[in-house]
């Protein structure tokens, strides 16, 4: 079963615009992590937000977390062509001694 579900499944925007993608999860979490995947390659960790945090920034990335709604959002500001990729949210459903559970991802296309 999948813990997270990203929305939208696909997003196409113009370079320079902001991109927002959302993630919903089912069970309680310790933290939620966002990863990026380029063209079927390995995932790269972007940012981690703890369950007691509401917002976190890293460069052009902003992540929010609403534990009452079991949802998170990832905002990429001033998008670039290199941001074209699939984005996944993942979480540990247990105490951390297990694997991450991912949703189906959002495929982001940045049009030049």
């Amino acid at each position, binding site marked *: *079963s*999948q813990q*997270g579900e990203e929305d939208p499944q696909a997003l196409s925007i113009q370079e320079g615009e902001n991109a927002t993608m959302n993630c919903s999860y089912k069970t309680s979490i*310790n*933290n939620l*992590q966002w*990863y990026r995947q380029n063209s*079927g*390659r*390995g*995932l*790269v*960790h972007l940012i*981690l937000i*703890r369950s007691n945090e509401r917002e976190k920034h890293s460069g052009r990335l902003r992540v929010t977390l609403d534990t009452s709604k079991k949802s998170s959002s990832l905002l990429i500001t001033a998008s670039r062509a290199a941001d074209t990729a699939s984005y*996944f949210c993942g979480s*540990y459903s*247990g*105490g*951390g*001694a*297990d*694997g*991450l*559970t*991912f*949703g*189906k*991802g959002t495929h982001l296309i940045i049009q030049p």
Partner: protein
Amino acid sequence: DAGVTQSPTHLIKTRGQQVTLRCSPKSGHDTVSWYQQALGQGPQFIFQYYEEEERQRGNFPDRFSGHQFPNYSSELNVNALLLGDSALYLCASSFRGGGSLRFQYFGPGTRLTVT
């Protein structure tokens, strides 16, 4: 410092055959997790190895087995291959001491095609 490496890059097998995939974790990491990613889907957790033992397992049949060696490298074995086993297999490593705050470093994956 080399990151997570996986071999081979691509593999083509026939139904019913067996396959072994290999992974070397990032330096300093002691935990290896394996994921299966079907086309257009998110990665699905197969199992995790720590101290040469399988610690946690996802919803995968016994045809999927693994091993971790003393140098922390790992193998994923799949027996009696099915067409549905065609996927990108990702290995990820982490340091167990990070607990639930650790994030995982992923390798580039092995693309398995079963015909």
